[in-house]
């Protein structure tokens, strides 16, 4: 750009007008979360059909159920990214705390006969304490060692649930929620809308909690830990305590999500305890964009929606008619998922939320003749010193 110094330069002019649009656009864009929230609040009252996206009209119980699932996983991914994207901790055991919330609520209702709200509070307490305890042990190792330890703990939980000790967990089948312990307003297909409200509330609570935590002084230390743990130590702070706070908060949010999920699906199932469940959270976060405010939410919603639709696709006539080379892999949702994940890691660093920005950069670099690498210095800064 050193040669383009004349004021009448066409390239310059292009940049200036683009920036002008950007300013005006940004003014409107700043209010989109409020707009989206309004849309989500209005959704149950809408009979608008979204062919291809949803099976029935938006307000129908089936669509609301899927939307609620999308919101729960959007929130769950947002809470998980507190570790991955905000503190730089790669946990492979998040499923454990999610499952702890759901299973503990269900088991307390079934075995102790307590009402739902009391059970849920106790379960939330249990999930939080579990995260604090296991985090305290696991964080004694750093880096990938931590990842492996969280994985091992979650695996132990998964085995425990599968073995069905004392008939508490229901083993492979899981256990259905006792309808008589739930408030009447949460039972039955005609009350799906109430579950939708709960899912939406969970998402808002998670977003608010993560937003506040990240902006707090603790959140700034997390950012420091993510970038360079040693520099935080040099400042005289012990990263261990800060990491434990992040782990516990994230675990508590997951447990809360597990409770909402229990209501939505009407039972505690062992699939929520598996390492594949945690890996799907990881896929959501990376797909949407780790470390960004909206990325994990976008990833969680996209993934959950795609997961349901891909299941339909895998069993659909369109796939059955394909030649074996294509049909066989496409009939496996996990194969598609794994492949898409690898593709995202390669082609979409920063996730879906970075996509508009990347498109803009590509366009403006084409216009000005700059290359992508020069236009994106931030992409390259992760290269470690050694």
């Amino acid at each position: 750009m050193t040669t383009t110094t004349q004021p009448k330069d066409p390239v310059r002019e292009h940049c200036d007008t683009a920036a002008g649009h950007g300013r005006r656009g940004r003014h409107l864009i700043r209010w989109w979360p409020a707009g989206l929230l309004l849309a989500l609040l209005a959704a149950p009252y809408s009979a608008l059909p979204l062919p291809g996206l949803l099976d029935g009209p938006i307000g129908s119980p089936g669509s609301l159920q899927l939307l609620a699932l999308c919101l729960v996983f959007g929130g769950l991914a947002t809470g998980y990214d507190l570790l991955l994207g905000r503190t730089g901790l790669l946990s492979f055991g998040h499923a454990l705390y999610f499952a702890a919330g759901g299973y503990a609520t269900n088991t307390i209702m079934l075995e102790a006969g307590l009402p739902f709200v009391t059970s849920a509070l106790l379960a939330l307490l249990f999930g939080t304490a579990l995260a604090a305890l296991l985090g305290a042990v696991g964080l004694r190792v750093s880096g990938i060692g931590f990842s492996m330890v969280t994985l091992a703990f979650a695996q132990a939980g998964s085995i425990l649930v599968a073995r069905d000790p004392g008939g508490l967990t229901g083993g492979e089948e899981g256990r259905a929620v006792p309808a008589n312990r739930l408030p009447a307003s949460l039972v039955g297909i005609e009350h799906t809308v109430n579950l939708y409200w709960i899912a939406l509330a969970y998402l808002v609570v998670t977003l608010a909690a993560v937003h506040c935590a990240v902006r707090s002084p603790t959140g700034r230390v997390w950012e420091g830990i993510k970038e360079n743990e040693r520099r935080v130590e040099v400042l005289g702070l012990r990263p261990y305590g800060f990491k434990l706070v992040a782990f516990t908060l994230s675990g508590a949010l997951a447990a809360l999500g597990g409770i909402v999920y229990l209501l939505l699906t009407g039972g505690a199932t062992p699939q929520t305890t598996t390492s594949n469940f945690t890996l799907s959270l990881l896929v959501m976060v990376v797909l949407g964009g780790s470390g960004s405010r909206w990325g994990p939410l976008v990833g969680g919603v996209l993934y959950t929606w795609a997961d349901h639709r891909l299941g339909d696709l895998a069993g659909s006539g369109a796939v059955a008619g394909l030649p074996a080379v294509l049909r066989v892999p496409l009939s496996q949702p996990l194969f598609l998922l794994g492949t898409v994940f690898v593709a995202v890691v390669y082609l979409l660093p920063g996730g879906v939320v970075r996509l508009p920005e990347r498109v803009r950069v590509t366009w403006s670099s084409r216009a000005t003749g700059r290359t992508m690498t020069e236009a994106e210095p931030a992409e390259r800064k992760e290269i470690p010193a050694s």
Partner: protein
Amino acid sequence: MSTVVLLALTGLGLGALYFLVASGLSLIFGLMDVLNFAHGALLSIGAYGTWWAASGHLPAAGSGGFGFVLAVAFGTATGALAAVLLELALIRPLYARPREQVLATVGVGLAVPALLSAIWGADARPFPGPRALSGTFGLLGAQIPVNRLVLTGAAVVVLAALKLFLGGTRHGLVVRAGVEDRAMVTALGIDVRRAFTLVFAIGGAAAALAGALGGLYFGSVDPGQGTSLLIFAFVVVVMGGMGSITGAALASVAVGLVQQFANYYTTAGLGDLAVVVLLAALLLARPRGLTGRLA
């Protein structure tokens, strides 16, 4: 007494499986900082490769005698080849970005078992093996399945071969030095990326061998086998100290034995939990693992 002997040898056999998976994981992690989540997939590829060859699809290979040896060799070679492809195609382009490398292996670890079950079905397939290896032999009053011995023997051979390779060859020297300080190895004029491909090939071969022999141990193959073994191999790697082959061997034996004995003398399934408790206890006492290497 006979129960103790049977449990001990079964534990050793299981430990041998863990070691075959963990040794490659540990070397790859030590050298490249990459936690290879696709390692279970490599094991499955080895298992299915052997099963495929031993079921009569590969000329000269079969379920008995030399044919079976050939089938195992075929499965092992397939695993090594897959590992090299994985390193060259997916890991290398993401060089110096370990987080992305791990994520890429997670994707492969999801996709490969799914592909296997798409081709051969999600259900377990009976694993053909020589009759000589499906029998038992008497030792101190216990009837021990022969395959336990085969597994332990194979693991000992692999351990010895790895030790010889690491201690006695120039490539082994480069790998050992690279585990300590990768940058300094390049500063001596050595292309350390070649060592990356090499450890992937070795790790892939060892995992695939574990798959082939695991087929004997479990009597069947299924697409999810690799993933469930992988998690205990991770535990072994952490306990052994990442990058240490001797540490991995010690930890494998410990995990295998604890699992077997706890499963027998307490409720079934508690052995798996005991392993995790063991891991937690070790981490509380020695955060750097058995061999004291930094995580």
